[in-house]
């Protein structure tokens, strides 16, 4: 079986054919996966919202409000939820860059009176086995039903009420800061719209 000789024409031609075929294939696959990809992203968000809020019947993704927290780089999203047209709370993104390995990003669900309903960890790169325990039920459960105006979100070591994860005080601090940010944005939003149930 004779190999093609390496002349300029044959080299240019064979590479051209290969790149053309690969470009066409990729274009086709991209077209085909475009919708499922967008859908998968939406599903992930709506699942996180459902996890942190009590049952609702509105579409929080449509009612989303984007705000930029003071003294922070990136803006965050507030997803208000309604049931029978009545405000029942909101899922708010909170983040902190001061985790042990950078960004910690949470979605915090608040009831209409400002108490924490539940928290979902969206992004973190903490140390496996130490800081990653922030996803554990035993850690998150201490926040449920607490109102951040009476429950100090600092670590006990810093004079707050949060029990730090063993060996991961820095991760716990970042977690607390993220919740605090989410709470402040929730309060600003709810007060501005007279939604807070005192």
């Amino acid at each position: 079986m004779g190999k093609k000789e390496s002349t300029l024409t044959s080299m240019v031609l064979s590479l051209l054919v290969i790149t053309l075929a690969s470009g066409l294939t990729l274009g086709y696959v991209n077209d085909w996966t475009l919708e499922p990809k967008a859908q998968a992203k939406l599903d992930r968000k709506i699942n996180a919202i459902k996890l942190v809020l009590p049952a609702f019947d509105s579409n929080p993704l449509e009612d989303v409000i984007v705000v930029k927290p003071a003294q922070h780089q990136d803006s965050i999203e507030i997803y208000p939820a309604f049931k029978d047209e009545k405000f029942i709370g909101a899922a708010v993104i909170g983040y902190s860059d001061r985790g042990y390995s950078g960004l910690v990003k949470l979605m915090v669900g608040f009831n209409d009176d400002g108490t924490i309903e539940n928290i979902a960890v969206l992004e973190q790169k903490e140390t496996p086995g130490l800081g990653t325990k922030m996803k554990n039920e035993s850690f998150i459960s201490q926040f449920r039903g607490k109102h951040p105006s009476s429950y100090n979100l600092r670590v006990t070591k810093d004079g707050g009420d949060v029990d730090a994860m063993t060996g991961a005080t820095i991760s716990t601090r970042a977690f607390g800061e993220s919740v605090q940010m989410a709470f402040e944005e929730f309060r600003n939003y709810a007060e501005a719209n007279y939604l807070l149930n005192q």
Partner: protein
Amino acid sequence: MAEKTEQRQNFLKGIVKDNPVFVMLLGMCPTLGVTSSAFNGLGMGVATLFVLLMSNIVVSLVKSQIPDKVRIPAFIIIIASFVTIVEMVLEAFIPFLYEQLGIFIPLIVVNCLILGRAEAFASKNNLWSSILDALGMGAGFILALTALGAVREVLGSGSLFGWSFVSEDANTFILFILPPGAFIALAYLSLVFNRLTVKTS
């Protein structure tokens, strides 16, 4: 008869004698990078098997049409195309795995196992042998990554395929889910693997 044994050899060599991870030590970047759990190892193995199979098929089919001097760029384009397809399909249909594997999916392109098989085998052998070679090598890669992931997950997280058998707050050998643990576990697994295969052959 000789033909048949030779074909069987093409398939089996990738699993035992020339196992890409434990014997040839190819594709170390994904091997060490993603095997923090058995499921991740399995997912990476299957993605690599797919790319390896497709690239071996295409390379074997077009080998006589590609001039020698541009064969490497041609192989790379073929491999990169299939990797991109895998990436898009995973993101669309298995977003969970896509997030877990992250940067290591595009890095399949530079997995020397795939280019190595294209260059050393598929460009010199016919279609059927190349398919068997890809399946064998891919199976060997899946086995190795899943085994490594399983060992690291059991020791490091106290679970297997996500099924936990210690309490949530138990202290496990965290070392094994961290990068140094990957090297240690890989070294011991290769040791055991080579010891066993040397004995049998």
